[in-house]
């Protein structure tokens, strides 16, 4: 819990840098940046797959309806 508290504290003061970090919490900004990048990449890729899937499904529906209408 102490770690979570310090994480929250460091994130809220990320831009202000008002307090020096405790030695064990040094480089928390780097850790935060690394995990943010990982999540952005994974979620971004999943989102792009889902968007492409929806687009293809819509195209299939359109073609099927168009074909049936003929």
């Amino acid at each position: 819990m102490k770690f979570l508290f310090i994480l929250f504290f460091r994130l809220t003061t990320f831009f202000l840098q008002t307090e020096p970090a405790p030695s064990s919490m040094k480089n928390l900004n780097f850790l935060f940046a690394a995990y943010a990048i990982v999540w952005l990449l994974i979620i971004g890729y999943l989102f792009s797959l889902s968007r492409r899937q929806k687009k293809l499904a819509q195209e299939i529906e359109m073609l099927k309806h168009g074909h049936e209408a003929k």
Partner: protein
Amino acid sequence: MPTDNTLARRTNIFLSGTALLMLVNLYNIFIAVPTESSMGIIQRIFYFHVPSAFVAFLAFGVTFVYSIRFLTKRKLWHDRVAYCSAEIGVIFTTIVLLTGPIWARPVWNVWWTWDARLTSTLVLWFIYVGYMMLRSYTGDEQRGARFAAVFAIVGFVDVPIVYLANRLWRTLHPQPVIFGGSDSGMSPPIRNVFLFSLVTFLGLYLLLLFYRLRLERTQLELNELKRDVAYS
């Protein structure tokens, strides 16, 4: 053949399972595991950085196997599996190449150094980005798939080079902690969290591959439908 509903339910179970594994993994990494004594909290990047590298190797391994299968059996679906796996491998290699420098900066005092492990990993990334570009630029599907398969098989040579780089040459990158020498290894809590993270990333790879292959199947269905419409 499973119905659409069964397939959707299975997909949801798979997605929920992976999400749950990831949540437990995050709990392990940020709360359960003790902070490593020499590097401090920055060492926690290890639990995403190393499993990402392992999964990238696996993804390129799948590309290698399916490229061989495509060349021997000439089934286009094998080429599609190889391509999808390579795409996911590139995502995980990108994670490795981005998290590595962020870890290196506070520990080595540099973002990047041209040592054997780092350079061979960057080369690996370029090889598979090149593989994907080759696929996009070749007009004829069969010919493009053939070229790409050969390229993927030759390119896979770099995977063992990356793995062995810090064993064969002197590098700034840490010496191996898995299957390393007698003085290597991890303490039990760190090892357990690492292994759990590895399993989680394996699940994530399978989930991404599943979604990517589903997309590929839909694309094939659309192509077939377009052909039918054109001929009718």
